[in-house]
């Protein structure tokens, strides 16, 4: 029921994101096909794959934050919480139903981008898709879950989706700066979601073949545990919230 209502509320955004996802999935090989005919198929594939991975990560991050700003936090902003929270269901049900409805949408976006984009590239470059290659999407996916969860939590703390989105954006901008500052001045490496990526983007641009490098395991595991912790905290916060 609440799952349906959340889907009903975000379905227009989902269709827009889906259209963008399909466009981005097709664009890498379309653009590169005309611009880089002189490249060998392997190099062409590596570059196109890199573009696909980054485009999907970027789109999913925006989608994650956008979907995170919906759900139960909007019930407070729109003053419908009194209606919803007098339904005979627990806070846990509402938090996780909203979370699941949105998570399913950007999983669908990921799946669409990866399947369409990777299949097209594989077909165009005659390169066989391997599990190792597909693993390159995992950091982006976990990052999306993180941003989604963080926005979801912040939106609930603010009891307002838009404010949650703005706060989340602030964290996305400020946190890497803090990490860099701490690293620069005190030589301390703060754990950051960026650790999930095997190589830096600048390196990857110079050496596209690194695109298939395996993402490091422990940052992946760590941050994939942090991602569901956000809605869990949101649930605890809501349990103690009064109208």
């Amino acid at each position: 029921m609440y799952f349906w209502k959340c889907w009903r509320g975000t379905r227009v955004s989902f269709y827009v994101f889906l259209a963008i996802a399909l466009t981005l999935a097709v664009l890498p090989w379309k653009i590169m096909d005309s611009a880089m005919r002189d490249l060998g198929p392997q190099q062409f594939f590596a570059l196109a794959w890199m573009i696909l991975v980054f485009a999907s990560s970027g789109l999913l991050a925006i989608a994650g934050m956008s979907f995170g700003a919906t759900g139960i936090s909007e019930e407070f902003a729109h003053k419908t919480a009194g209606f919803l929270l007098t339904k005979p269901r627990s806070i846990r049900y509402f938090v996780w139903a909203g979370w699941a409805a949105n998570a399913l949408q950007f999983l669908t976006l990921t799946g669409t981008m990866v399947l369409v984009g990777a299949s097209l590239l594989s077909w165009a470059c005659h390169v066989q898709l391997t599990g190792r290659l597909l693993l390159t999407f995992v950091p982006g996916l976990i990052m999306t879950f993180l941003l989604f969860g963080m926005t979801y939590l912040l939106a609930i703390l603010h009891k307002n989706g838009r404010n949650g989105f703005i706060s989340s954006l602030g964290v996305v901008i400020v946190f890497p700066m803090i990490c860099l500052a701490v690293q620069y001045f005190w030589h301390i490496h703060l754990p950051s979601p960026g650790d999930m990526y095997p190589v830096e983007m600048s390196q990857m641009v110079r050496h596209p073949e690194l695109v298939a490098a395996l993402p490091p395991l422990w940052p992946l595991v760590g941050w994939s545990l942090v991602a569901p912790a956000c809605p869990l905290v949101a649930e605890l916060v809501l349990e103690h919230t009064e109208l």
Partner: protein
Amino acid sequence: MNELAIDSKDLTKTYGSIRAVGGINLTVPRGAIYGFLGRNGAGKTTTIKMLLGLARPTAGAARVFGMDVSAERMSILQRTAFVSEKKTLYPSLTPTELVRFSRGFYPTWSDSSVDKYARLLEIPMKQRFEKLSNGNQTKVWLLLALSQGADLLILDEPTTALDPLSVDQLLHVLAEDGLGRGCTIFFSSHQLEEVERIAEYVGVIERGNLLMESRLDDIKSEFRLITAAGNSLPSQTSPQILSVAVEGNFYRYVVTKDAEGFAAGLSQNGATITNIVPLSLREIFLQLVRREQ
């Protein structure tokens, strides 16, 4: 079986230094229509929120159908329908979609009631909620609450924004259909005529204190306005004397019980009783609130 639908003991809610509800003891019998009267900010909505588990009592306890509102909230909500003071719902959904959304939460949901009340209240079921008039938005809330098949209806200012005809229809529905199937109706209002028309029990709350709770018939049969002429008559309030107004030699007493006995006492003190008249609920309410102030 517990004979009370709602039963609270010293129910208190404070927000910082503000005492919104100050230890009230409500007793709402099963199957009754209970009018919960009070001015804006008197504590009606806070009390309702505590009964529904939307706010936690600072002290005291409340039970609905014998179940503790803090510990057995889900069981209570399964049997309770609620119409909020703020009649906002999902703006992009139509009443039909709101019905679809609400239906799944309640095993006792009745689609035939939806059809019946949609027709009776003339609700445009295919129009988005945000496009509905204020009156129709209120009617959608009522439709959802009435179709739920609940044992207890908690209505916070249910007639807000309704036109007189719709108010009439609603009161008729509440009195006939609600009571017909043994439903308890607890509704807050400042529309005293509406309460007087259908309520069997009345509670008056002011500044978080329950000033009075009784059967409406008992209140109306007990409370009297006595006009007496004389000198040096009692001019202080007491449990029996709710208010005294003195104009020259004329004393106007509002008494809460035993008006005949009180008038006889005045006569013995040399007063001439010029009038003993019953009071409307509005007059009683105003007297109670003024005394509290």
